[in-house]
């Protein structure tokens, strides 16, 4: 399927970008690597008449140990090793995303803001003609959780949970102002409009606090094949160790709900104890109350949920 028609804007600076964004408002989308947006455009899923390319905006390519510009590609996270010495998990996770070819285009910003997924959403116009429209494509109701108006499409990005356990914040900017949010606050929990960016607001960069250096971090994702496939459950865990004693535990998951989820209230209770598989088990059973995947990806919800426990157990087993 060919792309729909649109006007491509190619601003050369941050200021110019924000100005164009303000001008076209809701009639425009930002275009980073396009690896998430353009497949949806080809399927005519909410295409806009104006695309604002971020390709030539140098301010979005900042990169040092604690800062990742929104336009840094996943391939760059893998290939430019120096700044990653502090956070070796970043190249590791990047390698688990999409495929080598896609990673040369895919950006960190685009990854955090990638659209949610659902078998009823990621389809062609022909498919929607045959099967009908759901909430996320302008229809009356959800087809997964029948009878609901709300959308349950799943957030599947892999970087978000990892950056969340690293305590990352995001810097957002529009023509009027700049604001900084903890990464988790970027997500709305609404499958139809999964991000809380305002009209014309740009994600400029991601910052990781220096305090996160020295955290032990692990990430596991559920997918049928060893490449290409999106997460159908992803678990990121970070903690500090002194000997076997664990502190500062953080857990975030993806691929299970409309937004990545974190569990600070639960994890903080496990500080100061020796890490063990039993602890992983205990944490899993506490998390279970908050994890309710719906049947909108390939694997059945029960299996996706079970893998959260399995992944936690496996990570803890490796750590202790």
């Amino acid at each position, binding site marked *: 399927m060919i792309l729909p028609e649109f006007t491509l804007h190619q601003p050369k600076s941050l200021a110019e970008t924000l100005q164009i964004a303000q001008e076209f408002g809701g009639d425009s989308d930002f275009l980073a690597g396009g690896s998430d947006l353009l497949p949806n455009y080809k399927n005519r899923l909410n295409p806009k008449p104006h695309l604002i390319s971020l390709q030539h905006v140098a301010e979005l390519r900042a990169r040092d140990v604690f800062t990742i510009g929104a336009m840094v590609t996943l391939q760059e996270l893998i290939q430019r090793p120096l700044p990653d010495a502090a956070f070796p998990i970043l190249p590791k996770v990047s390698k688990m995303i999409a495929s080598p070819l896609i990673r040369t285009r895919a950006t960190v910003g685009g990854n955090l803001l990638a659209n949610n997924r659902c078998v009823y959403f990621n389809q*062609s116009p022909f498919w929607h003609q*045959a099967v009908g429209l759901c909430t996320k494509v302008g229809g009356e109701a959800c087809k997964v959780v029948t009878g609901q108006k709300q959308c349950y499409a799943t957030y599947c990005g892999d970087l978000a949970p990892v950056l969340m356990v690293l305590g990352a914040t995001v810097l957002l900017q529009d023509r009027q102002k700049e604001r900084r949010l903890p990464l988790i606050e970027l997500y709305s929990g609404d499958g139809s409009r999964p991000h809380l960016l305002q009209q014309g607001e740009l994600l400029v960069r991601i910052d990781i606090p220096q305090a996160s250096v020295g955290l032990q971090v692990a990430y596991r994702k559920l997918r049928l094949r*060893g490449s*290409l496939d999106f997460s159908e459950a992803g678990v990121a865990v970070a903690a500090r160790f002194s000997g076997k004693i664990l502190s500062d535990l953080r857990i975030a998951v993806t691929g299970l709900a409309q937004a990545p989820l974190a569990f600070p209230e639960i994890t903080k209770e496990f500080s100061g104890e020796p890490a063990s598989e039993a602890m992983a088990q205990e944490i899993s059973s506490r998390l279970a109350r908050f994890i309710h995947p719906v049947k909108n990806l390939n694997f059945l919800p029960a*299996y996706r949920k079970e893998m959260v426990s399995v992944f936690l157990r496996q990570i803890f087993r490796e750590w202790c």
Partner: protein
Amino acid sequence: MSNHEQPTSKSFNIIGTPVPLLDSGPKVTGEAKFTDDFQFTNTLVGKILRSPLPHARIKSISVAKALALPGVFAIVTGKDAPVRFGVLPISEDENAMAVDKVRYVGDPVAGVAAVDEATALRALQLIDVEYENLPVYLDPAASLTPAQEKIHEKSVRDTNIHKEVSQHFGNIEKARETAVASVSASFHFPGVTHAFTEPHAVVALFSDDGHLTVYSATQVTHYVHRALAKVLDMDMHRIRVIKPYLGGGFGGKGDPFAHEIIASLLARRTGRPVKITFDREEVFLTHHGRHPTTISLTAYADQDHHLTGLDLQTLIDGGAYAGFGVVTTYYNGVLTQGPYRVPNFRYQGTRVYTNKMPCGPMRGHGAVNSRYAFEVAIDMLAERLQVDPCVFRRDNFLPPSTETANQFRITSNGIATCLQEVMTRSHWQECYGKLLCGEGIGVGCGFYISGSALPIHRSDIPQSTVVVKVDADGKVVCFSGVTDIGQGANTMIAQCVAEILGLPLHWLRVHAGDTELAPIDFGSYSSRETFMGGNAACQAALQIREELTKAARELAGHPAGSFVFHDAKVTLQGLPAREFSFMDVVQRAIAHKGALVAKGSYESPQLGGSFKGAGAGLSPAYSFGACIARVSVDRETGFIRVRKVWLAHDCGKALNPLAVEGQIEGSVHMGLGQLLCENFHYQGATLTNANLLEYKTILPVDMPEVEAIIVESGDPEGPFGAKECGEGALHPVLPAVGNAIYNAIGVRFFALPITPDQVLSAMAKDKRG
């Protein structure tokens, strides 16, 4: 030379040497032109309007608004081409576009030719079709009973059954009575598809004098040629079909297709070239892949550990059209028995129509699902008899030079060597029954036809004809109808001729896949090209060599001399040794006569019995194979890791070992895909994973190490002893891995694909049970 005299010299120049395929260079550099690469002046873009409904009567189609759109040149609908077609003359039930009703989501309804793709797509939206919904049949079991609305008029009685096959050889009741062990099991296989790289594409153009040329990504130019003539009501001599470089077929481009006819109709209507290239969703909807199938079987063994009987029933979900389905229905049964001696065999096969994408031939056509079922049953029998599954298989192999219960003539047969090879290399004896929990090893065997002995059209045309021409430039040009779909058929033709004429490959050119330049060949399916095209090529080359020998005798002044052709030289045997260059001999041979032209052809010998359906599965030769696989199963996640696959295949003689290894590795890839990942998901009647992200084929990272083992049994009738290797190698892969999974975790899987969630829940059930 008759068909059965083969060049059998043991030392070859180029036969048996690994040579890169002739098309590998052009494909790597981009020089190769695929169908979509052809650009002609004023070409229009063709697009197809498809049915969003699974079963509905068409009440009206209104194209006026779409035709009025600037840039739209023509629109055609079913009434512009009411003549039915289909690959098998016995079941022509397709229209280029729906005439009275649509039968699946994706069924072509209209064709548009426009100035560009965007305009054509817009025009599709402006066509108004008024439908009246009809009862929808999705469950194949529901198609067995009387239908409120038959999907096709011509189905069995008042049901939606397309084809019933009933066969009985020996006496299955006797096998049951004398059995000391028996196994009954039911299996379910969802449909899978070819997932070739290049989408279907066609360019059709009429010359001013009304001659039609069609470039198409097809596996059989001849069948497209016939269908076009029939539906367009044209003489065949007014049509030329060309197959450019092709990006994979695996059976999925073996039928004549609606889009080939639609492009031609639009070209005729507009007087301009019309190109249709499918998007990936259309490729999936056009399908013609492996049939969803339910199989029930009982296998019997006696006290001597002999397989005494197989009682097999299949319910085959054909989707909306017949296609090759009659053949599929037979193959599910008749190709199951080998490589074993099964004296008593009963088969009941039923193929039904449903309102889903039409199914068709796919690598290993018809026999892959029942092969898995039978090989799993054999493992279960061996376990019941407490005998090693390899030993049990070996004790039941057919020997070479024999006949099966249903009168297949078996000639060369390397199955025993195949099994021995994989057992030795995988250290079967040291592993089987001795691995840790979660680790497994398993075995499977298989066999397949080397070309169907019976042509699908009743005619006396040889199955393959090759013309070889040599002129003053010394260039040897081969004209052949074989269809190179990436498997290396052209290279094979060149190798056969080069070997006989003692030339390096660069002396040869092959013109193939063009109905105007090349004589008829029935194309690339049923693993026939090497055996049939190869034999025809050899026959033509031998005649050329005969002519050249006469010329060499004149040059040497040695009227009875015999000559060796090697390294572009022609050398007199014995003393005094005289040697001529190939060019000198050619000059002499064509003097006062002109170019040397010779023609070879191949026709299968008369084979088989005279009972109903005796022709199905008959082949001049059969390939054999054995596979052993090692797997690890993660008992927490259910993930299966295939660690290594040993696959031995008896291809008679590997004309090009590089190509044979490629086919063996490709077979592992495709087999693992069907076994572990690939599946169709539907929302009602609509396929929900019509793309290559959600239709899960095996990716390179997930491929295990493959040890490809070539076994050469030297077929008495194959070119240089060769048989097939493109499809047969696939069969043993699925059961070998399936049996290895059982060996690892003690759970059998009777439904595919075996995904991690299935593994976990099956293990949990097993614990409870």
